């Protein structure tokens, strides 16, 4: 038991902090900090800056650009990145399809995709959820039927985040409708989004933004070589991928940043002649969220220290569950601090409402998503009750 970081890790943290705060363009980081829209070009620019320094995919195998870091180093890397408001490397590339390709792809696929995936030369999107397959993902109905050297894909995906920017999609498709268990008849295919028969329809969200899409497939012909791993083993790869998705999903650094903003803004608002931050009720509310965040960070450190063979600790469900709740609590605090200013979401020039108050409510509404995606919090409770408590 020792609290302090070793001198080597202190130096590592300093190195990360310096890089993120000096080598990723300030304008992009300001946008992330202000919760403003980040363009595709800005995402790409930021990820390429990280990748050039070997900081985009440190968790990948060394052969493909990984760094062989300890879980604690990865934690520090992620935390410092979030505190510096660096757009994180695109999760679909670096946390999802990249590790799947590195683990289950054939040599040709690895050489074809991995370097471009790390550098965001290919922008990937996820074709998992369907209108009738949300938390019950294994009931998906999009089919792929073998026809000569091709698979022919028909069906519909939804909630495809940033699909409008995507070059390629990784897709779960039903290849054996007769399989006894529905999980056993699923395969993973990858194909370009401009393949004939692929149609993308944006979905407007309650914050007025467009980040998710429906994707329709009509007789989309995918070459057989684009099957990842073995036919009908797609469910295993999906589970592997979703396990990776859960690591780092606590987003402690990002929530810390929001709490720091909450304190600053609560100083700008005056109540009965005193800063809102000095109001005992508001100060206690912030202190309680902050304390839970400390508890979450410490739990994340315990979990990373105890993760064996890259497999997520079952307690990583705790990180997703609590991490999402605290992200939501922080966005809610920001709306409440803004008070009446929080309604001015779409004000433009001529309004005196500060930017942070304009974006507060859309951000809060948008963040209802975090307890739904990545395995909803109800799915996490099911995992905790079943896997950990044996219920």
């Amino acid at each position: 038991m020792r609290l302090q970081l070793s001198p080597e890790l202190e130096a590592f943290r300093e190195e990360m902090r310096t890089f993120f705060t000096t080598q990723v363009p300030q304008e992009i980081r300001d946008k992330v900090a202000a919760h403003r829209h980040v363009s595709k070009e800005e995402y790409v620019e930021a990820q390429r800056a990280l990748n050039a320094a070997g900081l985009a995919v440190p968790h990948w195998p060394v052969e493909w650009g990984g760094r062989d870091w300890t879980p604690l180093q990865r934690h520090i890397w992620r935390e410092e990145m979030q505190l510096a408001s660096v757009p994180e490397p695109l999760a679909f590339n670096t946390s999802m399809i990249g590790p799947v390709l590195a683990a289950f792809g054939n040599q040709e696929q690895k050489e074809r995709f991995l370097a471009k995936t790390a550098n965001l030369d290919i922008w990937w999107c996820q074709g998992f959820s369907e209108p009738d397959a949300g938390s019950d993902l294994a009931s998906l109905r999009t089919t792929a039927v073998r026809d000569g050297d091709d698979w022919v894909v028909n069906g519909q995906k939804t909630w495809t985040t940033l699909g409008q920017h995507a070059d390629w999609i990784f897709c779960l498709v039903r290849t054996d409708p007769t399989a006894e268990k529905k999980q056993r008849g699923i395969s993973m295919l990858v194909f370009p989004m401009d393949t004939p028969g692929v149609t993308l329809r944006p979905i407007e969200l309650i914050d007025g933004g467009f980040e998710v899409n429906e994707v329709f497939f009509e007789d989309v012909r995918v070459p057989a070589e684009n099957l990842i791993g073995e036919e009908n083993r797609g469910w295993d790869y999906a589970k592997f991928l979703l396990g990776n998705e859960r690591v780092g999903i606590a987003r402690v650094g990002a929530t810390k940043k929001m709490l720091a903003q909450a304190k600053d803004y609560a100083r700008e608002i005056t109540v009965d002649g005193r800063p809102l931050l000095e109001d005992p009720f508001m100060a206690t509310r912030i202190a309680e969220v902050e304390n839970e965040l400390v508890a979450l960070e410490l739990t994340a450190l315990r979990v990373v220290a105890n993760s064996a063979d890259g497999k997520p600790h079952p307690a990583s469900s705790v990180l997703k569950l609590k991490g999402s709740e605290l992200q939501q609590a922080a966005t809610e605090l920001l709306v409440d601090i803004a008070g009446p200013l929080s309604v001015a979401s779409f004000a433009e020039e001529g309004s005196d409402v500060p930017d942070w108050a304009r974006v507060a409510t859309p951000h809060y509404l948008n963040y209802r998503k975090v307890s739904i995606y990545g395995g909803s919090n109800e799915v996490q409770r099911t995992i905790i009750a079943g896997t950990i408590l044996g219920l």
Partner: protein
Amino acid sequence: MDFTFDSEQNDLREAVRGLLERAYSDSEARRKAAANEPGFDEKTWSRLAEMGLLGLPFAEEHGGMGAGPIEVAIVAEEIGRVIAPEPFIEAVVLAGGLIAAVGTDEQKAQLLAAIAEGTSVPAFAHAEIGTRWSASASAVTATQTGDGWTLTGVKEPVPTGARADVLVVSAVVDSGGTGLFVVQGDAAGLTRTGYRTHDGTRAANVRFDGTPATLLGTGGDQTAAVERALAEARIAYSHEAIGAIDTALRTTAEYLKTRKQFGVTLNKFQALTFRAADMYVSLELARSTALWASMVQDAGGDVLSAADRTRLQTSRAGRHVGKEAIQLHGGIGVTAEYSVGHYVSRLTAIDHLLGDGDFAAARLARTVGDRPTVDPLGAPYAG
């Protein structure tokens, strides 16, 4: 940064667990010990002494083991796991801790050795009617008489106050501030009225009427020393609470797997299993914070703030898990013959002895604007 116990610490845990599981193999054994005076088992107390646990945090030159906060945490958690009624935290960590912190060399040599041997059970007489969780005294006054002191006033509730043979007493001194004094259990002008507390332990009304006392240490205002000792005891109580919460949750999960209603075991009802999952989340977040607070203490960091953080987290977790544990059991959970209610009672006592979650939250709120972010591995916690 390392969150793992070393092999000696794991051995210590095994040894303590073995001893306490033999003493309290079922909840009936604990009930029996708590039913008879002095509210704990003197034999178990002696065995804890033989194992060296009653001198665990004291220096070897004073008859102790020279162990650190992590070892204290391990013992406290194991006590909580079976809610052993022995006053380890009250006597060793709090009263003993104050003697170790402010006593003269002579006092330490004499008093701490006797605690470590198990022959002396001290108590800290500090709480007063009409105030709560303060580090300073107001209801007992110390008066200097020649080369000695006398105390007058009332302390209550004093945990283990009637059984204790030595009292460490906080009192207002003429020069202002709070002084610390040692009063022998058989001192003249000392009246102690003990009673049973709801959790099966004991407390007392302790009345001083010109009672002769010895200054602990060399005098001056000891408010800061009391504040620190309370913080260290709050951290230790967090570990006792973690042990108790862990057992309450495990007992509840086991019950859900065996109890049948509507022809099926209760774990078939998602309304219940989801609540158990939330209890696990509360437990693990609190456990992380408690471990961390002990590491802060070990590293020489800001113990007062770390204690508030773990107090807040374990208070919330204790109430959440405790209340749900009873509810998920149903009627059996509120009976005296079943164990889980006793855990909730003890958690409730721990919550109120030295400060509850709201108390800690209010203190944290006062400094919430001092730093933009909290880094649990950095200043002011890493020492």
